[in-house]
């Protein structure tokens, strides 16, 4: 067991974890942050995407011990109280989700993308979301959502 201390969605947490425990397992099983989900076992789908010190990572591809001393933001920590993050708002406005399973990862990746490039072209959005799979939307409205958020001037 290894002792880790980190900040998750603004709260400091500290736990003993198995060294092999993945960050996504830690979030879901130890912290009950079930908004972040597991969609595959090969780091292809991106459903588990969170921010580690402000940059998107696939939390199935990070060990919990690697997050020791760092700051993690999940989909549950993105809104400011009742005020949704503009990317969350854009996904609702543009019908950028159907079943919603890929949505937390997709939104976290989109936020990171817009932090890097606040005014992306459609092509840049499509390439920026390449690591996140969705089976419902055909991506059309996800891309719309990100472009819509960009137009509204999204900043983290």
């Amino acid at each position: 067991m290894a002792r880790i201390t980190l900040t998750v969605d603004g709260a400091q947490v500290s736990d003993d974890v198995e060294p092999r425990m993945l960050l996504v397992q830690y979030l879901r099983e130890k912290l009950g942050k079930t908004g972040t989900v597991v969609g595959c076992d090969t780091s292809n789908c991106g459903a588990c995407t969170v921010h580690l010190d402000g940059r998107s990572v696939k939390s199935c591809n990070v060990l919990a011990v690697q997050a020791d001393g760092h700051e993690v933001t999940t989909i549950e920590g993105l809104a400011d109280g009742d005020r949704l993050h503009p990317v969350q708002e854009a996904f609702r406005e543009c019908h950028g989700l159907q079943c919603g399973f890929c949505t937390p990862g997709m939104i976290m990746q989109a936020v990171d993308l817009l932090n890097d490039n606040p005014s992306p072209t459609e092509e840049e959005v499509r390439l920026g979301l390449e690591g996140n799979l969705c089976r419902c939307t055909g991506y059309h409205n996800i891309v719309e959502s990100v472009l819509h958020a960009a137009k509204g001037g999204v900043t983290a």
Partner: protein
Amino acid sequence: MTATQERPSAEIGRDRRRKEDQRLITGRTRWTDNITLPGMLHLAMVRSPFAHATITSIDTSAARQAPNVIAVFTGRDVADEQGSIPTAWNITTEQKSPPHPPIAVDRVAFAGEIVAVVVARTAAEARDAAELVDVDYAELPAALDLKEAAEDAVLAHPDLGTNKSAFWQFDSADAGTGGRVDEAIAAARQDGIVIEREYRQQRLIPSFMEPRSFVCDPTGEQTVLWSATQIPHITRFFLAAVLGIPESKIRVIAPDVGGGFGGKLQTVPEEMIAVLLARRLGKPCKYTETRSESLLAAHHGRDQWQRLTLAANKDGTVTGLKVDLLADLGAYAGTVGGGVPILGAFMFNAIYKFPAYQFNCTNVYTNKTLTDAYRGAGRPEATYAIERLMDELAVELGVDPLEIRERNWIKHEEFPFTTVAGMEYDSGNYEAATARAKEMFGYDELRAEQQRRRDAGDRVQLGIGVSTFTEMCGLAPSRVLGALNYAAGGWEHASIRFGGTGKVEVVTGASAHGQGHETAYSQIVADRLGVAFEDIEVLHGDTQISTKGYDTYGSRSLVVGGEALVLAADKVIEKAKPIAAHLLEASADDIEFSGGRFSVKGTDQGMAIGEVATAVFAAHNLPDGVEATIDADATFDPVNFSFPHGTHLCAMEVDTETGEVKMRKYVACDDIGNIINPLIVAGQVHGGLVQGIAQALWEEAVYDDAGTLVSGSFVDYLLPTAADTISFDIDHTTSPSTTNSLGTKGVGEAGTIASTPAVVNAVVDAIRHFGVSDIQMPCTPERVWKAISSAGGGGDDPTEGAAMPHFDRSEPGQDSTEGAGA
């Protein structure tokens, strides 16, 4: 009460943002895998690595000794209790269906079949211990290739004596719906055109994003199962039937469910095992599959060979169509199973006026993962075949593919039209949808550009693909299902109930998993009852709340489930009317209901339906003999299917030197009848399109010669990404359906059904001048390049080779599917 009195304009037709989204975009979700219960145990499955083998011994001792392992079960441990998972659809009374125990007892019939289950205190410990279960197998020859399996060369289930599950035929002469197809073909051979083709429907994997998960709590009076399923009601029925538990002692809950596409339309071994072992151990048990397990052992879709003969007169008027299908069921008959190809039987004739038609289907068992419904289920296969054939007929005649279609399709003034397959198409306007699609596409300009590039010998050639599809939606009239030997019905149920404050609860038997029922149903009820959209709560997916229903699949939720809502709402109004009359001190005959208000004719007196509900709640002043409720239930059983249609046009660019294909433009003009929520409809179309396009270009479940699924992860099974796809141009024409009062037709499967042939037609069209007339799906660069390169041979030979790998094969460490059987 003011909220119910000040209503905005009609809800139906508005692009309402979805009620579902708030929780989904904030991570406030209830996926089955999120559920934890006190003392909950975790299951891990031990699965066969062999496609066909007898189990000679299983040593579980090491696994039992592993930390925090509670128990290990083999098939033999539960053989007396576990029963056999039935199929709901024996397509003939003589169908052969091998027994399908949830845990294999002495023989496995596909790689991935469960042979033992480890129960431990954590999921990680269960999985660790599963590695310690030592199973000895004696490998048996496996039936893998579909055509060889149909010859019974190797038997998938030796005890059955054959691999053939059943043969099913529809013949228009026998049915009295048309002539003899063999006569039409013979006549065309003499003095007409005969197009003969064989097409492959490759095996696909539904690939819903949420892996399947099951949590069973046996500790209460009722056994509760949370299941990532499309079908909580059917699952309750199956659990009762297979495990012998009284139906009233089972509660099935489908909480938030992350997609299905038919892939969660089954009652599956893992689900049965979770219930069986939780009850055996007296503790809550959870099983959540890994993605690899999901791709390996959750069911697959399609997998057919289609032999097709189309007969036509010299002028291109079609005279007959004969279809011979070979369908791979995999190792067992699934819930819908053998019925999937039969759902296509009525659709091969599509929108065309064939005077003679024959459909033959042989279902075959192999030692592969079982196949079952996948988005469209039977209808994409049919649409692909006929829309490819119509293009071939156009080439034969040297006319535009739209022209040959128009020459043969049902004209708008001919509806309702009874087809050669015996279906009555209620409404449609193929001319209007096609005209609109051509306009959006810039059809003539693109044809001109295609000609220019062909004339110039450009390296990158342009192809234009057409698909003028139709489908049958709204599964299904129960009598039709009965006639097809399906074991259940096709009605849907709804309840509407009012709280004392005048708010409305709508309960539906259609169990949503991403479609937006909560929003669309609220819109329907808001209009019908004149209550505010926000005052309506839609409840579903829990058999204790929604006690009756047939769940969600087959584009049925709106055309069947929506109509049940309408009937229930009308009953509510009828029940409320005498109460309103009494409270308004008027005769019931003088009461009218409009915009949510009961009013006395010719006066300004009236009250909102919510106020009636409040009065009923108190029940202080009701008319004598009137029950103190305005709640109502209704069940709707459709008398016919609905028949959405549309014209899809696709432009593909093909690099003739590398075989790379690139989508340039895609236009869809669908006629899905009246639209409740255009935003939700657009989402269904977009998502459907990409699934159909993915069949054409990317996806294939590939097995090696030993029967191992080599595309068993998202590394190798090529789900498209945002970077692979484009934005679409969609629009609608509207011919309201006459089979339901809302005039809706269903849209969930349309995009998937329509798009596959549009894409392949476009790819073939781009390189037709090289002598290419077919490319086997998925049209990978390798296959396209080979088709061009072997064009000297005519290009008629089906292309062979692997599905496209996810990564560049030249990079180290990447598994390749090269050389695997197509």
